[in-house]
């Protein structure tokens, strides 16, 4: 029993200590004036890797989720003779919830795991260490551009997801099942508000971006420098990011809607 309590306490202390290390890492990565000339190129390269290369998976997922929503929504609404509300249903569901959440989950799997594995490998092969000894701060050279790239990319990806998702709903509802296009889009227009819905979506995406990127970078930076350490860190990134996104989504929804 005593052992159990002891190990529980040890676990809690370990978690809190790593939260502290994560905060220190982010602090050192983000303070100080950036050298725009030097860091802009790094940032662009990371936005390409984190953002641009994620576009395909985001667009395909968005399209299919929109199409499924359209199909399910249409079949249910038909029973109530309310298929005219399909545009409202699809656009609100996607903009308020599915857009930012699914984007963040896909981002954690596609970009987050890659970031953790990359930084873990840099650490395991002493490349971070040798950078430190050269007088180049890896937090500012490696961590910082990746963090900003994530924070910039995810809201944009989330917007793309919403756009394509709504179009997917239209593909099924209008082009396949014969709903009037004007009804679909006027339903969307009259119910989606710029600040309350789209603004909230951007805020959510922004918060998820910070959480996912931070988790991914810290797991890589803090991993055991062995092959099993890297694999554990990569798994931890996906698990922790997903849980963080779902938890934060609930909190943000409760606060904003």
């Amino acid at each position, binding site marked *: 029993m005593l052992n159990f309590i002891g190990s529980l306490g040890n676990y809690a202390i370990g978690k809190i200590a790593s939260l502290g290390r994560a905060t220190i890492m982010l602090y*050192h990565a983000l303070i100080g004036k950036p050298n725009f000339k*030097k860091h802009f190129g790094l940032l662009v390269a990371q936005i390409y890797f984190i953002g641009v290369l994620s576009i395909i998976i985001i667009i395909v997922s968005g399209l299919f989720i929109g199409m499924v929503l359209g199909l399910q929504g249409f079949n249910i609404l038909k029973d109530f003779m309310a298929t005219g509300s399909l545009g409202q249903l699809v656009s609100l569901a996607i903009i308020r919830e599915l857009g930012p959440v699914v984007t963040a989950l896909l981002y954690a799997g596609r970009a987050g795991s890659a970031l953790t594995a990359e930084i873990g490998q840099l650490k395991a*092969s*002493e*490349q971070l*260490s*040798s950078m*430190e*000894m*050269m*007088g*180049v*701060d890896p937090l500012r*050279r490696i961590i910082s551009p990746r963090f900003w790239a994530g924070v910039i990319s995810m809201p944009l990806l989330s917007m793309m997801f919403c756009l394509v998702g709504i179009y997917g709903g239209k593909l099924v509802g209008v082009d396949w099942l014969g709903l009037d296009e004007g009804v679909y889009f006027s339903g969307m227009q009259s119910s989606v508000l710029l600040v309350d819905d789209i603004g909230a979506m951007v805020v959510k995406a922004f918060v998820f971006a910070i959480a996912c990127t931070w988790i991914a970078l810290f797991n890589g930076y803090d991993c055991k420098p062995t092959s099993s350490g890297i694999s554990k860190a990569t798994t931890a990134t996906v698990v922790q990011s997903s849980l963080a996104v779902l938890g934060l989504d609930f909190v943000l929804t409760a606060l904003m809607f």
Partner: protein
Amino acid sequence: MQQNIVEIKNLSFSYSGNVIYDDISLNIKRGQITAILGPSGTGKTTLLRLIGGQLKPTQGSIIFDGDEINGISRQKLYEVRKKMSMLFQSGALFTDINVFENVAFPLREHTKLPDILIRDLVLMKLEAVGLRAAAYKYPQELSGGMARRAALARAIALDPLMIMYDEPFVGQDPITMGVLVKLIKDLNTHLNISSIIVTHDVAEVLEIAHYVYILHNAKVLGHGTTQEIKNSNDPMIKQFINGLYDGPFAFNLKSQTSYIKEL
């Protein structure tokens, strides 16, 4: 200017309960090659990391070129590190960029030199280690010895005051080893770079070192000029220098339980 580039005073360091260093003091003279010898597992690499400020000592002071490394601000530490350089055992080249870019990396980070000048500097550094022909190869295309020489070119890119070599001879064939020994000596004489070589390859390092420290059991076992160490009468130093099986050094790690009991 101080005579010693590194002064370590009363340094103690423990890591997760193990005492690695217990109150040791070392001086590294400017412009000399200092060898730090000791059996594997005595934490010789740890000493280099302490000097480089990657690890914090439990106690004591480390002064590099007049700056106290222990307790320095993070920003100042990164400034000081520009004056020193470390050759990692693995080379630790950046694997995503080619040899040329690896050597250019510190120059691009720390100077505002135009590309054309960086190109010339990099080619000069690569020529110094005999790898100009491999400039556009990637680290994974290099042999172990070539990787270490490329890392050496990168280490001298900013013309540091001091280079720390972490086991530079491990796993090298005799010819590469000879090349590395000559390179380290040449860098020391021509560029007047102070060098610390951490190694257990005694024969090679005694050829070029000016001064020798031998570490054992968290203490300095002995130190002196290369001649003094070679002529030492201390049985432990003798055994280590000559690589004898029989002597005061135990082959087995000390165990808590007796062999018979454990079986």
